[in-house]
């Protein structure tokens, strides 16, 4: 029997606001435990929440990027449950009227395009972080009240690979929109999954299992693989899947029952009386729409069209917004697009990968990068010189034109000088000359190489070849 897998994701994304969701505490992560707190995010008696309008804006922008319908009227609810990571023992969230409804993410599954529907996006506050030690647990409330947007997908993914595609694309879009860093290490993008299997041919979805506690994309993938195998084994053996919430144990590499349906929480949602509903007019939504960047896929198409670069190049360049921006800025400084593309894909991305640095952290500017490529394009310097200069620019920055001038790296295109070198080379290598005249092509390369050597790498190689041929009368 073959089974069809249905996977849905609930993805929590930390928004890039300056302050917390309902108070004025900032969002810095690197301060000692329980120092970045106030009466509001600690839920002290009498404290009241205040809406962070920036968080609403960023969520709406995300919704617009993902093709959601933006709610003109949305409101907040209290989600009640007791746990020490919740200072009020309720979380302010959105239950009945979320900010964004519908929409979706376009992915590629088995080489074909596939649309993963989004059910809704809502806004809520994060809980504290609990650290467990050998004999006690510690609670750090610094994270309490951090704005989170929860993106709830429909169960449209049918394999762990599709789930990865969805998450990668989603992350790319959200980072693009500047709404979140989506940094998994810092925990600002976390997903719970729900998964069910059903026999091929059955219309109705199988019983849904929710899995929590995956901190990485890898963990999600592994948990899904494990869970598919587990459910398949249960059903194949004639068993029945019971609705429950399971926890992924990365050490054991398996999912473990966390709570069954009988023990499921009754969150007793009701409207949050301390906050006013969020009412948005067309004008506001349109003004936020204007702040949206292109989607990665739109940018890719435009790159092909506008810069006449191959689709493969456009794909690589548009994958990360900083890279795409760097590409365009370098072109704007007068460099030739295909040349810029080649250099980014080979030299720049390689050095970034090797150094583990972000584009924003290196001193290389589009201006100096363009200047280097223009020197190369005008044959003021040759390729070896350019490749030698590039790592230095990457590390320290600088003005390539000045560097070339100062160090005398300019390519020798002075025919007199090259003729002198050619004469020396021909005299010193009679055997090679003979080979060349005898029709061995590579022999010419050797002679050119000798000229390069004599010129300490500065001779224009094409000119050197021509001068040799001329002197040998070919």
């Amino acid at each position: 029997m073959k089974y069809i897998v249905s996977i849905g994701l609930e993805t929590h994304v930390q928004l890039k606001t300056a302050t917390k969701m309902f108070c004025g505490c900032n969002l810095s992560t690197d301060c000692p435990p329980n120092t970045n707190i106030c009466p509001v995010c600690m839920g002290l008696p009498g404290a009241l929440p205040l809406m962070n309008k920036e968080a609403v804006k960023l969520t709406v922008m995300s919704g617009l990027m993902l093709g959601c319908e933006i709610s003109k009227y949305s409101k907040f609810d209290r989600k009640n449950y007791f746990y020490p990571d919740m200072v009020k023992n309720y979380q302010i969230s959105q239950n009945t009227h979320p900010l964004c409804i519908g929409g979706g993410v376009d992915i590629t599954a088995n080489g074909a395009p596939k649309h993963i529907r989004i059910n809704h996006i809502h806004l809520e506050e994060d809980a504290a972080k609990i650290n467990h030690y050998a004999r006690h647990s510690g609670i750090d409330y610094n994270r309490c009240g951090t704005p989170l947007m929860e993106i709830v997908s429909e169960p449209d993914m049918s394999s762990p690979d599709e789930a990865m595609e969805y998450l990668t694309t989603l992350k790319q879009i959200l980072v693009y929109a500047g709404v979140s860093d989506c940094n998994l290490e810092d925990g600002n993008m976390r997903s719970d999954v729900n998964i069910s299997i059903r026999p091929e041919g059955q219309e109705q979805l199988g019983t849904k299992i929710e899995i929590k506690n995956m901190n990485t994309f890898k963990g999600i993938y592994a948990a899904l693989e494990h869970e598919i195998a587990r459910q398949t084994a249960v059903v194949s053996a004639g068993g029945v899947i019971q609705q429950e919430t399971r926890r992924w144990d990365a050490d054991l590499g398996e999912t473990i029952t966390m709570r069954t349906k009988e023990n499921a929480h009754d969150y007793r949602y009701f409207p949050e009386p301390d906050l006013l509903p969020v009412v948005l007019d067309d004008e506001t939504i349109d003004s936020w729409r204007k702040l949206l960047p292109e989607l990665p896929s739109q940018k890719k198409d435009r790159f092909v069209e506008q810069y006449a670069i191959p689709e493969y190049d456009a794909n690589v360049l548009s994958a990360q917004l900083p890279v795409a921006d760097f590409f365009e800025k370098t072109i704007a400084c007068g460099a030739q697009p295909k040349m810029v593309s080649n250099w980014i894909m080979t030299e720049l991305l390689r050095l970034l990968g090797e150094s583990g640095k972000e584009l924003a952290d290196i001193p290389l500017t589009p201006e100096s990068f363009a200047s280097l490529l223009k020197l190369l394009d005008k044959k003021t310097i040759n390729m070896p010189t350019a490749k030698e200069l590039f790592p230095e620019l990457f590390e320290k920055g600088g003005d390539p034109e000045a560097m070339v001038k100062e160090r005398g790296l300019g390519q020798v295109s002075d025919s007199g000088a090259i003729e002198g070198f050619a004469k020396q080379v021909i005299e010193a290598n009679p055997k090679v000359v003979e080979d060349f005249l005898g029709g061995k092509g590579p022999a010419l390369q050797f002679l050119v190489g000798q000229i390069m050597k004599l010129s300490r790498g500065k001779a224009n190689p094409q000119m050197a070849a021509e001068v040799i041929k001329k002197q040998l009368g070919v």
Partner: protein
Amino acid sequence: MDLDISKMTIAAAADGMRAKDFSSVELTQAVLKAIKEKDTEVKAYLTVDEEGALAGAKEADDRRAAGESGDMLGIPVAMKDIFNVKGQPCTCASKILEGYIAPFDATVTRKLREAGAIPAGRVNMDEFAMGSSTEHSAFQITRNPVALDRVPGGSSGGSAAAVAGGTAIASLGTDTGGSIRSPASYCGCVGLKPSYGRVSRYGVTAFASSLDQVGPIVKNVEDAAILLGAIAGADSHDQTVLDREVPDYRAALAGASLKGLRIGVPKEYFIDGCDPEVMASVRKAIDMCANAGAEVREISLPHTEYAIAVYYICATAEASANLARFDGIRYGFRKVGPEATLQSLYDRSRTDGFGKEVKRRIILGTYVLSSGYYDAYYNRALKARTLIRNDFQKAFESCDVIMTPVAPTAAYKLNSTVNDPLKAYLGDIFTVPANLAGICGISVPCGKTSENLPVGLQLLGPAFGEVELLRAAAACEKEFA
């Protein structure tokens, strides 16, 4: 100097200080002395910060010397134990908050301080403002100064008892379902519940967030106007406060008259089962208004009968969440059982930390929000609440003010409702509709029973109609005097 606090109003104290008859320090000393001498039986006060009060008074005197002269400058105010006053205890008369010291000022506290008033002492209340008799305090029973064997009403019973007992010039209370108006009525004070959204709730420990309002319990309508003016207005810490101009309520009282005032008398508020003496007293007061030139007409508020049920669903639902934070983890009372589990920490801290009435309401509120019951209770209550609000909106098309009794009885004997919660809940029948509708209401003394117990007349006005409400109340006060 011997200042008689039992007769002292805010207005008189302000005049006295302006005339340099006495200083704020002298006034505050007189209040502290009155508390010491006279609060031994009534027991309105839980704690008094003498040193802080005198320091505040000294500061007020300095500010006056520097040229300030506002009405609240140098006036000590008794604060219900629900308001955060930085550095003072804030227990809500609950064991679960015993020893809790407020780390910040409520907005009303801040506004009082800015006006030069002094948060001088903390007065008793029903635990977390849940109750109508102040018998549900974890710490002490407060008696009605008018008749010591009777309750002062609640939940702001300490506020009313301090003002009526001559141990406070003025007091701040909160009103979720009548908790200002009812004790004011029982003790013969004036108690004002402002419209929802008129006064900030920031720093006021929440009972039911959509119903709670802060207001004065004072000796006359003029003082209510002065104190409201000091605490009302927009607050960057509370979204639910409307950004509307705060009028000069005191000045607006000038020339207040009953002539031509359209008074609506809802038939649903004059029902069987009420104390006939109280009803007669209220009827007589309304007749006096008519004789003074008011137009009295009978009106109908047809959904009144649902008010108590709706109130006890909405208020307890919100309370069940608002009080969830008291769990023994971060502050307040904590008890761990031998099980030493997280669950036992919650269970034991909350079981022993909360009183019976609070637990009753938390359980009720949890129940009405539970899956499967939400639609039958909470959702229907919200719909009925809209109907009640609409009733008032319609009524105020044809009248300026609505007059009703504040409570079905005068102050009752101690211990007479403690074991009969339903009877106690029904005592709120005339006050809860105003909270559900978000409108303003005031209790004004209008007579006495044969046992010499005060009776209060309730005046209700439309949302943000405090000026007209206070003018009507001031005219009544003059007429009844």
